């Protein structure tokens, strides 16, 4: 004779199944916009213009993914995005780590007070500095170039990244530094040969977060770039929306393409994403 599971156990199982159902249906709900987007990207404009929800397109119009490159210079936009994002990450990693080093490994008078100032700058809404910075770039002839989108990264890389790296550097045992100094290393050598290699995970996290920020950013390109061919992907899509608001299929295609690198990066480097976001909750 089979024994039924005990009552409390059954209750727990029921609860678990219910929870599972709840979570799964929520997840499905969250997936729906993605599915709809991909489905629309594979239809033609005529097919899209129906009110019945057709999830699986009758014919898969893969050619949309080629046509989009004719509708706008998407490939150029892609290249521009890579260029800007890559250099921005480089600048951020270099300068944020240098500055974080000063706030963690080095001891100097006023260190903590200045650090508070660094943190305080995070609270400043960018609108206040946006206009004078624009005028500044105008005066030095940097408008309509990529420089305004890249150069600021080399000047500290953002208070948040400095904070993140500082937290990590603080966890490195002091003995390493002391013995290196006794061996005659100067601070820069310590930074370059000891701290940076050890900080690879933190640097990866900063790199990933920075990638996210730059790849998705469109306000900077909107304000500083006017040549059509100088746009990044984000700006390119925005301009396309303005002009061809009703070409939904192509818009969906462009969106999928822009989204893909971010999703791929996430799938491969989940750890760093999550760590980065968690760190932003620890501050304060």
């Amino acid at each position, binding site marked *: 004779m089979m024994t039924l599971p005990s009552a409390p156990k059954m209750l727990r199982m029921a609860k*678990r199944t219910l*929870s599972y159902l709840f*979570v799964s249906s*929520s*997840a499905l709900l*969250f*997936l729906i*916009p993605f599915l709809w*987007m991909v489905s629309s990207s594979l239809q033609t404009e005529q097919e899209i*213009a129906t*009110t*019945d*929800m057709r999830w699986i397109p009758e014919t898969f119009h893969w050619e949309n993914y080629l046509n989009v490159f004719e509708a706008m210079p998407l490939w150029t936009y892609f290249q521009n995005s890579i260029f800007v994002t890559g250099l921005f990450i480089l600048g951020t990693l270099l300068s944020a780590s*240098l*500055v974080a*080093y*000063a706030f963690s490994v*080095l001891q*100097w*008078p006023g*260190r903590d007070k200045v650090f508070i100032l*660094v943190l305080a*700058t995070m609270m*400043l*809404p960018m*609108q*206040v*500095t*946006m*206009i*004078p910075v624009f*005028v*500044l770039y*105008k005066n030095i002839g940097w408008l309509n170039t990529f420089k305004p989108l890249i150069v*600021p990264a*080399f*000047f*500290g*890389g953002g208070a948040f990244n400095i904070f993140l790296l500082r937290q990590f550097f603080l966890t490195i045992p002091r003995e390493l530094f002391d013995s290196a100094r006794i061996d005659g290393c*100067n*601070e820069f050598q310590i930074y370059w040969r000891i701290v940076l290699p050890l900080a690879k995970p933190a640097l990866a996290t900063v790199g990933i977060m920075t990638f996210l920020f730059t790849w*998705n950013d*469109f*306000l900077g390109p909107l304000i500083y770039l006017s040549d059509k061919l100088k746009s990044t992907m984000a700006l390119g*899509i*925005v301009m396309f*929306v303005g002009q061809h608001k009703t070409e*939904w299929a192509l818009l*969906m295609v462009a*969106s999928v393409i*822009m*989204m893909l690198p971010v999703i791929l990066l*996430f799938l491969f480097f*989940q750890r760093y*994403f*999550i760590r980065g976001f*968690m760190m*932003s*909750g620890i501050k*304060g």
Partner: protein
Amino acid sequence: MLGHRKQDTLIAWLFVAPWAIGFLIFGLYPIIMSLYYSLCQYDVLRVPRFIGLQNYSQLLFEDPYFWKSLWNTLYYVVFRTPLSIFGSLLLASMLNQQLKGMPIFRTIFFIPSIISGVVLSVIWLWMFNPEYGLINSGLAFFGLPGPLWLQSASWSKPALVLMSLWTVGGGRMLVFLAALQGIPRHLYEAVELEGGGWWTKFRHVTVPLISPILFLWTVMEVIFSMQVFVEAYIMTNGGPANSTLFFNLHLYNKSFNDFQMGYASAMAWLLLVITLVVTWFQFRLSRRMVYYEGGK
């Protein structure tokens, strides 16, 4: 030869130099100039002309769009903040159970938060399309009439709030999840022993213990919501009938469309003041509502 201490300080400042120079050029200088511009008439094509507080008085007393944009932003912040915080919390508690396939679920909920605002806007612009979009098609499936969403002055802001709920599974949720996981089990068990149910547990254990985190994220969420711009710019451009003319969009229009930089700078300063006031207000409220272990 400099003394050791002085040498140390010099070296430290060399390391800090990138940030320090950046702060002077991109931080301090712009803040001061921005204040100056706010007292001027300036279109960047010509030199600035000092006009004193005229921009501010025009902004506060003669610009109907200013107040409308403040109202729109307030509406958005007030509705979006509690819904997002609660949404993240709900999601976090749902995921706070040892279920199989957690990483997959976590991924699905997380990804919308890392997509570009541009892509988000495009996706939801399509979803909200009154004729062919998924939302109205779905409603029609159930026999319900769908509103005009982004093309209706009364439904446009609710649409934007709804859209922002798709990203509740982001970093904020992860932080909440970690916080929830940090709550000692025995506290829940104590409530169970006294006969309390789910709501009691939630109200008397969960919320107070994570209130610092909740509070912090609420403050951040308020500040973040006040920055709303991308969606309005791409999806509705402030319409219909200025129902989605948010503060930042109005500021952007004034600065980069009308080239009234002085006026826009005055707006930016007002935004700074408003942000500080709102944040200060929230901190005052926190004294009453947030429970800090060990007191604060």
